[in-house]
């Protein structure tokens, strides 16, 4: 494009963009090579880096934003992203089911309950206000969008502060949580009585049930549990039902109109199925992105597990220790090393690491101190994934002439900060964002995934209701200038 109006002509803007895109790929390749000379273990970081790069390119290519999967249904009645999301989840589930069945999965299901719905709802409102979820804001940062960068900043800051803050918030902790948390026998360094999130986790969330669909349905055979329980019953069937609902509510009417105009409406089940398929195939680039993302996310699990087996470790902290770095490792002796596609925790760790350097005691809580640590950003595996995701999106945008530095405005910055903060809070309440809390969990047959998603759906509805009112007011003001 530029190009779209003058086929075959490459303008200087696009040529410069392509050079930058190649420079990004060259830089990451160089980093990988240099890392391999420094340590054999650097391949562990490089694996996260290159999967992050693939995620970034796919997200940008397919305009793949989990927020839009929910939001665009209510805002403009467009199902293309919901379709892409379902495709990605099914493929991620199928590809990674082998690793689950063979007992080599790096995935751990999360507790589920009402807290998952509430967390999803808060996250859902936030993602509409900001214009993108955690992954969407990261890839849009790669497109040069300053508002998206503010969102990432707000998510990261709010998480780091929310997991540590106590003070007057301690008064809001129910007595039962306080007692249950105190009786957990957590290390004294955690000061579990001081911190709302600590008492929420140790006093409430950890008491909630944890299950995959395979376990819930009582499959004894691990292959039946993975493929029938987790994939078929936990992903494929709910996804097919959700898409059928989307077809009837948001797609069927316009599809019927188009078929009527084309002179061929034959009512019946076959016609409905054809319409259902047209909806799925409507946005090629979103569907392609979903396909590649799903397969890549599944392969990511294999690669990380393979590397853990190769080095004889179960967490990157072991490799850090072997390289002589012990600073920033948690009390459990681990650092955040999900082994699959996950966002938000690593960005919070970056802020936590900076706050720690500024003298804030940030490790007296469960999130940083007990579980995830605050490793040096250079040695934070998941942070390499985040950085490469941004660069992957930037490379793809530059290749297609879509990179543009876009400043922000007071209005957008306000929504970015409010929405980003809500997403940060929702992420920590739900133990994950739209990727870690929804996409990855649904794809692994974790019961908590769809529950968090239901909350996101309701939150998106509320957020769109608000923005409809807001934009209507602004349109009315503009319209007043030129009359009816």
């Amino acid at each position, binding site marked *: 494009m530029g190009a779209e109006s003058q086929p075959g002509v490459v303008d200087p803007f696009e040529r410069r963009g392509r050079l930058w895109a190649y420079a990004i790929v060259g830089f990451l390749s160089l980093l990988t090579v240099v890392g391999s000379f420094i340590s054999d273990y650097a391949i562990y970081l490089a694996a996260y880096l290159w999967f992050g790069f693939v995620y970034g390119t796919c997200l940008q290519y397919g305009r793949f934003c989990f927020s839009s999967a929910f*939001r665009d249904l209510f805002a403009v*009645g*467009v199902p293309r992203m919901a379709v892409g999301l379902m495709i990605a989840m099914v493929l991620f589930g199928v590809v990674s089911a082998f690793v689950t069945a063979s007992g080599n999965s790096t995935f751990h299901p999360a507790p589920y309950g009402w807290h998952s719905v509430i967390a999803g709802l808060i996250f859902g409102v936030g993602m509409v206000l900001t214009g993108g979820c955690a992954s969407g804001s990261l890839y*849009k940062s790669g497109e040069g969008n300053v508002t998206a960068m503010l969102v990432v900043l707000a998510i990261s800051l709010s998480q780091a502060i929310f997991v540590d803050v106590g003070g007057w918030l301690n008064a809001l902790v129910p007595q039962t949580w306080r007692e249950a948390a105190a009786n957990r026998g957590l290390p004294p360094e955690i000061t579990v009585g001081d911190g709302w999130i600590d008492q929420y986790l140790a006093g409430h969330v950890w008491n909630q049930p944890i299950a995959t669909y395979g376990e819930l349905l009582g499959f004894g055979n691990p292959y039946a549990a993975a493929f029938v329980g987790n994939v078929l019953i936990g992903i494929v069937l709910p996804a097919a039902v959700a898409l059928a609902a989307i077809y009837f509510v948001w797609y069927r009417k316009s599809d019927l109109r188009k078929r009527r105009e084309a002179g061929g409406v034959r009512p019946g089940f076959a016609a409905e199925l054809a319409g259902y398929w047209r909806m799925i195939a409507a946005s090629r680039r979103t569907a392609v992105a979903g396909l590649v993302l799903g397969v890549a996310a599944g392969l990511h699990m294999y690669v990380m597990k393979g590397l853990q087996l190769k080095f004889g470790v179960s967490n990157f902290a072991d490799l850090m220790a072997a390289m002589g770095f012990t600073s920033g490792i948690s009390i459990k002796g681990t650092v955040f090393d999900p082994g699959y596609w996950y966002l938000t925790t690593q960005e919070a760790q970056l802020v936590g690491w900076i706050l720690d350097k500024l003298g804030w005691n940030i490790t007296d809580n469960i999130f940083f101190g007990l579980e995830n640590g605050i490793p040096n950003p250079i040695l934070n595996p998941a942070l390499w994934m985040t950085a490469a995701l941004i660069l992957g999106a930037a490379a793809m945008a530059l290749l297609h002439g*879509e990179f*543009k530095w876009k400043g*922000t405005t007071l209005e957008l910055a306000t929504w970015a900060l409010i929405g980003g903060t809500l997403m940060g809070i929702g992420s920590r309440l739900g133990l994950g964002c739209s990727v870690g809390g929804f996409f990855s969990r649904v794809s692994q047959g974790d019961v908590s995934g769809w529950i968090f998603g239901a909350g996101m759906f309701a939150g998106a509805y509320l957020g769109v209701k608000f923005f409809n009112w807001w934009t209507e007011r602004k*349109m009315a003001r*503009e319209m007043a200038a030129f009359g009816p």
Partner: protein
Amino acid sequence: MKFEKQGDGLYRLDVTGYVCPHPQLYTKKALEKIGQGEILELVFDNPSSGESIAAMCDSAGNELVSKDLQGGKYTWKIRKAAG
């Protein structure tokens, strides 16, 4: 955001700088405001909005008359469906 009438049957909506969902929401509302057969010239620079706006136009039967991208800024002309 700037929404203005540029002439008979021609309107211009500039949502440059806006992120999702603003461009698609404003486009939807602008198309609701203008008359059948009239043209909306839409200017935006948020790539993901384009995908949703194209799908929205297809769904409503509005015709995408032209699409252009220069320096990361999109200019699309949309003719509102006749009925």
